[in-house]
């Protein structure tokens, strides 16, 4: 009982370095250079701001402007104002709602599996064993291959008749038709998880490496079990990073394009159509840049609020 309580107590102070918020606030305020401070802060931000303005804001504004126009390839230079018609067109399309649902389902399934596997593997790696450097490198290997290319190769590797992967997996799935209607969703999730879990692993593993050794050792000396140590020392201190990773992976899986497009093309029909593929098909394949930008903004707006909330929480959490 007492052990458990002690172990739980550790969770409150994972870094082991007590903070003194009062002192630091006073010190920073003591500088009494608020104007100077603001200037420094802006100067430090300047390169990023310039970059954002030039390569993000300008295209984005141009995109926002286009989204309110009838702007197809032929009329790109002379677009005519249509107000919010493009947005309404997207919102009224049943295909868009289906794509949203699909993307949400895909993102949630993928991120759940990714987090579970990523953190488990990081925990597994978070100890001494021979050839660890090589093992880390090998585990991260799938990250090094562009999803477009890997997705295309998967078309062969998952092929029903000649695909080695589907042949090896047929013992589990009972069929080699991994790209048929029945398995195509799971195949996509699997392909995505294999390709992108190393991201989660990397974040979780580096966070675990940063966990205070003394605390861990103290917990060991006091006889906390492996699970207790993990639950009460490791987890709380890697939690912020895991939160960020989770949000990041969720959002990126939500707008997934390359892997799905290469592997299934959103098909059969619209069966695996993610929002990005929807936009691509509705807009880029039809050279309709007004609708394309409207759809992109809709997606961005939908994701913006949860993302900003999360980021704000993350900043506040540590301050």
């Amino acid at each position, binding site marked *: 009982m007492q052990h458990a309580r002690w172990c739980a107590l550790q969770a409150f102070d994972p870094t082991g370095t007590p903070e003194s918020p009062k002192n630091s606030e006073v010190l920073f305020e003591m500088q009494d250079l608020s104007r100077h401070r603001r200037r420094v802060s802006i100067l430090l931000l300047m390169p990023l701001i310039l970059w*954002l303005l030039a390569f*993000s804001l300008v295209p984005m504004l141009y995109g926002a402007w*286009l989204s309110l126009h009838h702007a197809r390839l032929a009329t790109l230079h002379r677009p005519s104002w249509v107000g919010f018609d493009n947005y309404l067109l997207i919102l009224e399309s049943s295909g868009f709602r289906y794509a949203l649902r699909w993307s949400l389902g895909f993102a949630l399934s993928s991120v759940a599996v990714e987090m579970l596997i990523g953190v488990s593997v990081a925990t597994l790696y978070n100890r001494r064993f021979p050839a660890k450097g090589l093992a880390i490198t090998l585990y991260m290997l799938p990250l*090094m291959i562009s999803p477009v*290319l890997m997705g295309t190769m998967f078309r062969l590797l998952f092929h029903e008749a000649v695909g080695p992967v589907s042949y090896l997996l047929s013992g589990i799935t009972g069929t080699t038709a991994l790209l048929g209607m029945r398995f195509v969703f799971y195949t996509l999730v699997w392909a995505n998880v294999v390709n992108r879990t190393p991201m989660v692993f990397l974040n979780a593993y580096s966070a675990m490496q940063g966990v205070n050794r003394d605390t861990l050792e103290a917990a060991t000396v006091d006889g906390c079990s492996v699970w207790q140590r993990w639950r009460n020392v490791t987890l709380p201190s890697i939690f*912020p990073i895991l939160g960020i990773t989770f949000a990041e992976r969720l959002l990126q899986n939500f707008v997934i394009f390359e892997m799905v497009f290469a592997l299934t093309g959103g098909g059969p029909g619209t069966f695996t159509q993610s929002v990005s593929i929807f936009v691509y098909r509705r807009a880029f394949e039809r050279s309709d840049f007004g609708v394309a930008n409207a*759809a992109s903004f809709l997606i961005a707006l939908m994701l913006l609020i949860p993302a900003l909330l999360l980021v704000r929480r993350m*900043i506040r959490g540590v301050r």
Partner: protein
Amino acid sequence: MINMTKSTRRRIGAGLTALTVLIVILVFLIGIITNIRTSFMTPADISVSPPKWIFEPTMVNYLVAIATGGYNFGVYLYNSLVIALGSVAAALFITVPAAYSIVRYRGLGDFVLGTTLLVRLMPALSFAIPVYVVFSRFNLIDTHLAIILMHTLFISPTALLLLVGFVQELPKELEEAAIVDGATTPQLLFRILIPTIKPGIAAVAILGFILSWNEFIFAVVLSFRRVITAPVGTSFFITSYAVAWGPMAAAITMASIPTMIFIFVAQRTIIQGMTAGAVKG
């Protein structure tokens, strides 16, 4: 006696861990392993059902990828390397000071962070045509710089998020002490911030490198013939009708070797950096 038992037990534990790791790696690399296998096969061997596991390896796919007609894989690799390194350097240059500013000074920082995040959320495709139109006005199409500029933008959100996390872990006392000692802001950045968040920088470098190395859409739209990157060059094996499986597998394998070496070296830096940080911490 007790010591011996302990070390033996530890050794067994390490062995078991290594074995589990090996299994995990094998499962995760199944696609890559079979891809490498395909790269050594002739078309006739590829198109056999059930798939062959024992076959006579051939180098012909590698030769096709390196030196056939329009393909010039060496140049594609070089372009990818230049672009990836350039993008990482530029991304660090813009995000390290920004991360510091975001963590230590409120106000504009949070707004910038939010805006940067928005960039990541915009489907990259929607930028493609506007960016192309703007860049072609500046005659930047088919230059390394054009792709570096855009890749830097894509690396920045990830970099910023990571760096903000790392800077937050930096105890304020260090800086306070430095400020009391009369350190200037650049000194703070270079003498205290950067050395302390080295592991973060290394992580950003790796992630940024990977992101840039694999980025596809902008590498396609902004390149023409001189700055074709490895992934774009590899996509040339998706031909009008068929996919040239063998050469494509070979090209993928070759393109992943430099990154593999890079990561093998760089991940050691991370681990060392982190261990060092933990000892002092």
